[in-house]
Every structure is written in structure tokens, then in C-alpha cells.
């Protein structure tokens, strides 16, 4: 299915031509600012889709069948892919900062999987980490000039003869960034009036968002200064190098987007490995230790594009035939809970851009920080429920060891991510989502049994923490109601 942007991209430049066309594919009815915002919106969707795709691949790794001597390696693969996913999240957030600076609308939207996108050579799909899916990631993250003869040929051949060969005429993400930067760098297209530096305080900053999940891009830890142990610390491939850059000027924005563009293919720092290199390294190890014909796999056989809807009910996704419906009633509920928490995460994320950081020293730490930390909490919930889903049966009758086939995290998009216009309504919306979670939990409490003690414990803890969050929400809602009544 073509994306909502497709009709506006008919003239998007073909990057195989050396020279970019003068109008950079801008349709006549767009202003340059508007066109730039649309392209940023497209990129945000791609970053989001990549992040989720990689998360799913990482969560698929493991299972009791992995031989003990290979577990350390498989665990390292998982950490590496999770670090790449975190970096994609950094990209997503930095792009939101850029959109905010330009006065655009925060964009956390994407389509459900599978999603065939004109800027990606394959449909975005949720699938386990197989040699084939790895080959796709390597191919998609490869720099244009990639020609490491052996692996390039092998991977291209493999994909060409596989079920989803790369599209012939794809508008690459690299091309998208080239176009974005070309527009941005031209003061005749984007004028100084198009930037809104006063939004800086509303943007995400590294110190608050990723201070403990990596280091600012390019910064090297300098522990070698300490004492006699010369300890050269460099960005470890399993540690995310999360780029989250608030931007106040054209130059800030150019630099931030260049960093984002480079991280996938060719990072600036010599000690950091690109996404492409990290995936390629995993591919090489994977091929050696779990060759195509090996009966032992390093992953759990998660379904491709799991969904709680049947095909007719699917709202989006252009290859609905390749999705897999979860039919086990308990797993459906877990997937519903997963999707609700995913909605919470995306809503909290979107909301942070509306709330100024605590710039008013008289008010102290307030809603901004609370909403931001709630976003982190939901990331941890997604991690937990993903794990539960990968241990839960896909269909009824798959409960026992012999027939077991796992479900997987669904990552289905909510009907809307648009925040209500009034601040009070935003808070009320959270309360609705928490209430829906409570209902699902109640159902699960009724149906889970003793063997599911770990899941029951988790639900109790979740309920416990949700109740605290609701207590906080009630206080904030009351404050807003009071403020509104005083205004009126």
C-alpha cells in the first residue's frame, strides 16, 4: 500500500543522477518549509519502523535450543541489535526536535506491519532474526558505495533469490537525507524566519533522555586519565550511541541531521561501528555458527507480523496476507496490553514536546519530567510484555512443549496519536488508557493459573505502579480543573 505521502513524491529525485534537480522533487502546491516538514515526517516514520523492526528481531533471539557454547554470542547479538534500535529511537527523537524547531507537528505515526515504503527496499516486517532478515538489514543499512566483494555479492544474490527481493527503484533513506539537507542548507528556500529557536526548551535533550544509555555522539570516555591503568574506553558495539540533539538554529539542525544520517552507514567516530558494520558482523558470525541448513536456530520461532486482528479487520498494512493472527485467548490479552502500553509510550513521548522542560525555577521539576520518566517506564513494560509474548502460545492447542509455537509483540498502532487540544484532556486520555489496562489485567488475573506465577507477579507489580501513576494523574487533573475553574 502506498503511504499517505506517496502521491506527493512522484517527482522525488533519483539519486543515481549525479546532480540533484533544482526543485528537489517539490510538488508545486508545497512551500519549501512545508515540503521539508513532510520529508522530516517521512523520515520519522522510517526511523520508527526500523526501531520496532529491530526490537522484534532482537526479542526473537534465544530459546532453550541454543547450545550453551553459543549463548554468549547470541546474547551479544541481542544487545547489539537492541543498541541499534535505541539509536533509531534517538534518530526519531532528534527528527522531532528538528520538526519542532521548524514549527511542525510532532510525528510518531507509522503504518502497521507489514508496510511497504517507497524509501525502504523491503517491506517493513516484524520477523525473527534469520539469515535472510539479517541480509535485509545489512543491505538496507549499507552505504551506497558498499562493495566488499564477497559479502556484497553473496547478500545481494541471497536476497534476489529470496522471497522478498529488494525493490528495483527505491528512494533510499540516504537520498531522503540528501534532499532534506539540500533544502535546509539553502537560505533562499528556508529563511531564518522559518526557525523558531524559542522551541528549544520544548525539545528533547541528551542529558535528560539518554544520559545513561550511551554517550553523546563522538564523545569518548576519558577514564584513561585516571591512575596508572591505561584504560582506553571506546564506544562498545553493544552500547548505544544515542544521538539526541536539541536544535536552535539552521546550523544546529544541519549538524544534528548529518549525525543521524551518518550513524547508519558511516559514523564520524573511528571507534564507533555503524549499523551496517554491526549487522554485517552478526551476519558473518550467524552464517558460521548457524548455517542455513543447521537444524538448530538461534531464535524462537516468532510469527511474522503478529496481529490480534484477522485479515479483514486490519486497518492498514499492505501485505496483510503475510501477517499472523494470534488466536490464543490469553496471548491476545497480553498483546492487547502490549499495544496499550505502546500507545502510552507514544503518547507520553509526544506529550513531552508540548511540555516545556522545567525552565521555571520557581516551579521546579514538574509535569515534563514526570511524563518523560513515564515514557521510560513504558519502554520497560514493552520489554517485559514482549518477553512474555515470546513465551506464550500463538494459538490454542500450542500450550505443550511438543506443539509450542510462540506469539510475539504486536506493536500495533493506536487509532490516533494526536494529542487532544486541551491540556486537561491529555491527562484524561491517560486515565482512560490506564483504565483499559486495568480491565485486561483483571481478565488475565482470572485466567492465569499457578504455572504462570511469574506473569501474575509481574501483573501485580504493574498494577501497583499504575495505581501510583493514577494517584499522580488525579493530582494533576485536579490542579488543571482548579486552574480552569479559576480562569472561568
Amino acid at each position, binding site marked *: 500500500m502506498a503511504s499517505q505521502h506517496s502521491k506527493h513524491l512522484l517527482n522525488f529525485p533519483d539519486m543515481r543522477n549525479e546532480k540533484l534537480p533544482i526543485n528537489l522533487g517539490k510538488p508545486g502546491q508545497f512551500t519549501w518549509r512545508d515540503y521539508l516538514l513532510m520529508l522530516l515526517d517521512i523520515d520519522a516514520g522510517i526511523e520508527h519502523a526500523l526501531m520496532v523492526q529491530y526490537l522484534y528481531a532482537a526479542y526473537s533471539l534465544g530459546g532453550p535450543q541454543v547450545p550453551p557454547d553459543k549463548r554468549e554470542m547470541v546474547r551479544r547479538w541481542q544487545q547489539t541489535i537492541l543498541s541499534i534500535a535505541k539509536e533509531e529511537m534517538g534518530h526519531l527523537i532528534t527528527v522531532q526536535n528538528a520538526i519542532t524547531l521548524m514549527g511542525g507537528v510532532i510525528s510518531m505515526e507509522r503504518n502497521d506491519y507489514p508496510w511497504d515504503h517507497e524509501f525502504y527496499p523491503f517491506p517493513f516486517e516484524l520477523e525473527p532474526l534469520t539469515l535472510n532478515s539479517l541480509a535485509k538489514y545489512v543491505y538496507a543499512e549499507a552505504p551506497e558505495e558498499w562493495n566488499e566483494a564477497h559479502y556484497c555479492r553473496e547478500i545481494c544474490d541471497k536476497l534476489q533469490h529470496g522471497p522478498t527481493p529488494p525493490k528495483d527503484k527505491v528512494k533510499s533513506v540516504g537520498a531522503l537525507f540528501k534532499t532534506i539537507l539540500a533544502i535546509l542548507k539553502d537560505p533562499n528556500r528556508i529563511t531564518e524566519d522559518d526557525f523558531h529557536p524559542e522551541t528549544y526548551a520544548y525539545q528533547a535533550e541528551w542529558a535528560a533522555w539518554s544520559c545513561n544509555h550511551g554517550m553523546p555522539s563522538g564523545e569518548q570516555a576519558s577514564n584513561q586519565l585516571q591512575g596508572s591503568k591505561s584504560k582506553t574506553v571506546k564506544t562498545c558495539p553493544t552500547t548505544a550511541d544515542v544521538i539526541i540533539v536539541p536544535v536552535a538554529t539552521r546550523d544546529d539542525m544541519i549538524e544534528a541531521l548529518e549525525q543521524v544520517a551518518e550513524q547508519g552507514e558511516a559514523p564520524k567516530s573511528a571507534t564507533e561501528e555503524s549499523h551496517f558494520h554491526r549487522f554485517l558482523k552478526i551476519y558473518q558470525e550467524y552464517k558460521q555458527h548457524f548455517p542455513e541448513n543447521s537444524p538448530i536456530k538461534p531464535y524462537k520461532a516468532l510469527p511474522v507480523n503478529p496481529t490480534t486482528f484477522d485479515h479483514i479487520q486490519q486497518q492498514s498494512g499492505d501485505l496483510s496476507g503475510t501477517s499472523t493472527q494470534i488466536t490464543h485467548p490469553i496471548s491476545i490479552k497480553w498483546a492487547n496490553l502490549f499495544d496499550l502500553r505502546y500507545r502510552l509510550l507514544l503518547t507520553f513521548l509526544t506529550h513531552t514536546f508540548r511540555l516545556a522542560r522545567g525552565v521555571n525555577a520557581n516551579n521546579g521539576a514538574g509535569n515534563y519530567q514526570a511524563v518523560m520518566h513515564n515514557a521510560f517506564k513504558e519502554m520497560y513494560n514493552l*520489554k517485559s510484555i514482549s*518477553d512474555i509474548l515470546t513465551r506464550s502460545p500463538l494459538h490454542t492447542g500450542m500450550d505443550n512443549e511438543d506443539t509450542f509455537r510462540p506469539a510475539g509483540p504486536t506493536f500495533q498502532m493506536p487509532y490516533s496519536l494526536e494529542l487532544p487540544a486541551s491540556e486537561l484532556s491529555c491527562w484524561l486520555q491517560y486515565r482512560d488508557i490506564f483504565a483499559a489496562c486495568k480491565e485486561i489485567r483483571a481478565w488475565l488475573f482470572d485466567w492465569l493459573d499457578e504455572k504462570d506465577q511469574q506473569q501474575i507477579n509481574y501483573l501485580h507489580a504493574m498494577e501497583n505502579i499504575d495505581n501510583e501513576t493514577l494517584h499522580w494523574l488525579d493530582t494533576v487533573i485536579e490542579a488543571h480543573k482548579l486552574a480552569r475553574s479559576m480562569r472561568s
Partner: protein
Amino acid sequence: MKLNKIVILPAMAIARMGSSEKPLDNYEIKHDPKAPLDFRKIKRAETFIVDTQTGEITETLPASDEPPNFKDNNKIRPVAPFLEVFAVIEENGEEKLSPLDTHLLKHFSLAVKWHVKAGNYKVYRRTTDENDKVTAELTDISDHKQYALNGYSPHFIKDENGLPKSIPFGKIQFIKPNKTHPEIRLRYTPGKGLVYGSTPTKELPNVFQPQEMGGVAYSGIEIPPERIVYDSEKGLWNGKYTDNDSTLNTLAQGLYAAYGKAPYFNYYQEPQPARGYLDDACDGIITIELTDQAGHVAYSAKARFCSSPPIFAPDSEFVRTVQDDLEQVLLGPDIENQQSAALSLAQDIVRRAYETVRFMNLSVLNGDPVKGRPNHADTMVGNDSEDLGRAFQPIMAPHSLDTLSITALHQQLYTAMEAGIPPWFYDLLRKPDEVADLTDKGRRKMPAMMSGADARYLALTYRQIDLIKNAGKDAMFGDFPVENTGQLTPKNLTAHLHYRGQSNPPNTHINSSVGNCCPGLEFDFRSVWKRAFVGITLVEHDNYVLQADAEYADLQGRRLLSFDIEKDGEITNWPVVVQAIGPSADGTSTEPLRTDDNPDGVVSLEWSNTLAYIWKHAGQKLKCYFTKEKMLNKQVLANLPADQIITKELEVRNFFEEGSTLINEALAEPGELTQGLCSPWQNDFRECVCYYWASSRPDYVNVEPAPNGGSQGDNWMQKKRTGQYVVDDYKDNRLINYQDLFMDWEALLKFQIGGRDAE
């Protein structure tokens, strides 16, 4: 049946002071499986009631769903631990650990004798005058009377009857075995937590500036005549002693009641002369001897004890406790079998982390301005600037955190672990050699905003860190190992370490004691490492060689720089100091943090982690590197040129007494494990804001969500509860001040149950 040896358990018991006649009941801290993140519930557990006249356990108070009363009107109920004696019995070639009781004594025809030694070396630690040691000794106790454990000092005055005055350290009673309770046990009841004073000085010290505090002047404290014990003419403690050497003094300097400015200024500006105050805290060693019919000692065993302030948040535990430090010595800094480390062990650390965090006002400790006012509270942010000249700057992004949201974030980690997710935040933990990394990234590592034993950022023990790295790591492959400490047996020393004792409440156990912190609360636990190498004594917080035996006399006055140790099959040079680093003045690069006094920005690392890898080499010699130059007031990094270093092979001491979890007597004599603490201890509750041990001495209480989305609550030290936190300020009379604490601490300090004032 053969009696091979006897053991006292717990090998280290903590008593907690209070003036009520009724010792605190035993209790359990239970977590509700349906609300696992709530404050844990305190429920009274079976409690022995002792008739102090007869020495017998006359009654057992049953368990109850209600918590015990921690106060008896305005008097705090003391925590009085029992020390139990166990016998290692061999039968049919197998050893087992059984409570030593009257039947066994009769069977082996043995009689019991107890000896007790205790000390309060706080004044001695400062003045280094042997006559300032306050010591107590009881010998040959074989009856069941309650004996006063009184501390004497050559510098104490005599009473009106011409008898030497003393400080009551508490009472000792050999519990009389009876039919219901035939076991052999001893009970220690601590002192009341009173402040003792000195005789007036003929000439008041010439202080730089009188103390400026609102309300009643600090100098207005009146110690009742019966508690005036120290002779100001004989010793220096009243007005004639001032800390003046950062190497030799305690860390921090000036941890004593002082004349002149508030003691806070002792360690940041001009040290002030001591006011001559002492307290009734102590630590000591209890010995039991079993004598045969000829009166010869056939068996003996020892245990340590201390008396310390109460834990005021008894439903919470600190993120790093003395048990963590001792486990590291006992079991090593690395997890033996990484695949079998149970997730619940790491989960326990996370629980303790949020039990600590929720009592800290994180926004204030972050260094954020508060309600528009600059924040000059005593925080790590302030310490970084004061000690190492780092730019004053909040640790995390300003206003980016609040106690409620960060507590919830920690709780979410715990929640994820409930689902079987192994910890994924190893990279976020501060490694023990990164404590002086004051870059933004370094300061933001976990645990954040708290001080360790080196007065720099707290790190967990290597073993805790390794546990978080490995616990439950194979969950992705379907393996979920379970925790198993095992039974109490003669050889299972981990079980010995975990043993609490019958009727002993949890706050008697070492896992209730804040770990290797600066200076500590129950112990100055830094003091236990200073004799790790046979032949030399190091300063507890510094690499300076304070004393040396004749064989190593030449080492005195030098600094230990590093030692060689085998790790991962290789010989590694292990430095004991690091260089502090932080942002340059313009914030564009990282550089060493230098001050005039410390041009290389040298930081001595805390001993517990620094020495963690040596203990498996006990009895062996390690190659140690010292400065060639003797240097007291100069510090250098470990990577000196070879011609400025001398080497010496030194033997590693056994940390524990053979086959037990008793800390080797050679490491610390009675009085040494508490010597670096404040004198009096009440000072510490005023000196240090919460960032040493919030879960014992809370900072932020009665916390609720605030309408602005953050939190609101009270400073625990606030006299009037308003829900509006008063930022720590030595001149703000809304807070309990030194005088209040010295005179009325039991009434003023409020226990916290469920995060709320309990009374």
C-alpha cells in the same frame, strides 16, 4: 558425639540506642505479593521477654500483624540483640551445627564464662592521645545478673566519692537457660544515646567567628553535671583540639561538636576547636569460654557488636550494606557461576535502591535551584566543587527529575524483573574505579547523588555489580535459576553471615547497616581495611602509611600506590588512587580536576572495593608499590616513574577468623570500628544530608504528588510538618539544629513507617 568447636552467631550484632526501659520487639518486614512495590509492612514477630532480675526468658510475645511501637512515649526503645552460641557437633563422621544448650554442656561437662571488651575511640581518633581511649571490660561472667558495661578513660574525672566517672555503654546479661529456652545466649542492651561533656575550660578558645544560627545559641547547651566526664585540664578535647590535617584527620574533617561556626564549616573553611563532647556509642568483642571440670578453657568463640543510632525508616534497606561488603570478602568480587546467579538477588539490590531513593529529595540533591533560590544544600554537587573545584552544575539536566518519578522508574525496573527480565542496566552502574569521574556522564551513573567511603560518588561492590551483570542472564534461553543460601551448617559461612538470631529484629543484622560509606552510621567500616597487609597500618580513608611494624618501619610515612594481583590469569597492577576528572572550565573537554592542595586531582579509592581481589591471597605475599618519598601533605598518582617508587612484598591478612565470619581481631580492636564517626553521633544527623544513608536517616518524608506534577513533602529534620520541604541550611531555624539533637533527639526524630511520620 564429639564437640569440635563453638561459634557465636550472629558474628556481628548491631544494637541501637534508646532510653526506654523496654527493648524493641522483634519484627519482620513483609512484602505484599499483591502490592510488591509498596512500603513493606512491619509486623511484630515472636519476641523473647527477659526478666532482667533473674536473667530468664519468661515469656514469648506472639507474632502480630501490627508493627511494634518504636517509641515508648518520647523515649526510643533500644534494640538489644541476643548473641547465640552454636556447637559444631560431629556424629558418625558428619558435622552439624546445633544450638549450644544446657544438655550439651552437661553432656560434655563444660561451664560457661563470658568476657566483654568495648571501646569508644572517637576522641582518641582525633587527638591520637592513648589516654583519650574510652574502654570498658567485663570478665568472667558466669552468672545471670545484668552487668553495666561502663567505659573509662584516664582523662575522665572522678565523682564526688572519688571514684572514676565513666560513660555507660549499656548492659550485658548472660541469659539464664531454662526448660523452654535451654540455649546459651547473651544479650547486649546499648546505652541511651546521651551526650557527655567536659569540665569547663579556664579559657574559652579563641574562635574565628561565633556560630550564627537562629534561635537559641549553640553554646547554650547544658550538659547535666552527672554527664560531665572529661577532664579538660588533662586532655585536649575541650577547646584545645582542632582538626588540621586532611590526611591524618577523619574524612570528612571536623566531625565533632565544635566551638565557633557550625561544624559544617570545619571541613570546608576554618576548622573549629572541639567542644569536648562524647557519646555512649561503642563497638566491642564478646568472648565465650567453655571450661572443663579442671577449669581449663576447652573451647572459645568470639563475636563483635556495636551500638549505634536507630534506623528511622525500619521498613527500608540501604542499597549497599555491610553485608554486601562482607559477602564480597567471603565469596569474592566476582560471581562464581554466572549462569546460576538468581535474578532475585539482583532484584533485591534494585528494591533496596528504590527504598533508598524514595527518601531522597532528588531535585534538591541534583543541585537544582529551589523555588527560585540558589541551592546551597550539602550535596554531592557542592562537594564536587568544594573538594575538587568542579564547576557547580546540577548532576542530571536541571529540573529533569523528581523523587516520585525516579522512584517509580526504579520500581519499573523491579517490575520488569518480576516478569523474568534480567537486568539490562549494567552499563549504567558506576564502576568502583570511576568514583572520581565527575564528567556529566560519570556523575550520572548509578547509584547517583550519594557518597561512598571515599567521599566521592558511591559505587556498589564489585560483587553487586557482577551480580547485576549476570543474574538471570540465561532467561532468554529459558533458564531461571533460583536463590539458594542453604542450611545453617558448620561450613556454610554464607548462611552464618545471613543468620539473624532468634528474637533479634532485622535492624540488629548487618544487612540493616549502611555499607562502606562516609563515614557510616553503625560503623566507620572504612576502619576495617587499614591493616589488610600484615605489618602496616594505613589511614582508613587514605593511602598514607600511618604505622609500621619494625620489619617495615621504613614504609611509615610513604604512600601505597598500587599492588600486583593475579586477575583473570594475568598479573595486573592495581592502583589504589585515581585522578579526578571533569569538564574543563569552558565545558568543551575533559581534564583532570586540580586544586592548589591537590594539583594532580588525586583521589584515594575506598578500601573495600580496592582490596576486593586480595583476600583470596590471604597468607600470601603481594608485591606492593610505595612512594619513595615520604609525603604527608602531598598526594601523587600511582603511575610515578620507576625511580620514584619502592616495592615491598607484603602478606595479605586473613579477613575472617579461621572458619568463621568473625572479622579478624587483628584488623580492628574494640573501639576502632566506630572511631571515625561523629562525636557525638547526633552531629552526624545534622552534618550530613541524606546522601549517605537515606534509608536509615531519611531526608524527604510524607511525600505526595504535587499539583505541578512533581512531589511535595517535608524535610525529615523540619520541626513543623508543612508539606513544603525546607532546604538544608545550617542557619535555618525551621530545621532541628545541633542543640535540639543533643538534648532531645529521641522526641524530635520521627520514625517513618510507610514513608509517613509514625507518630
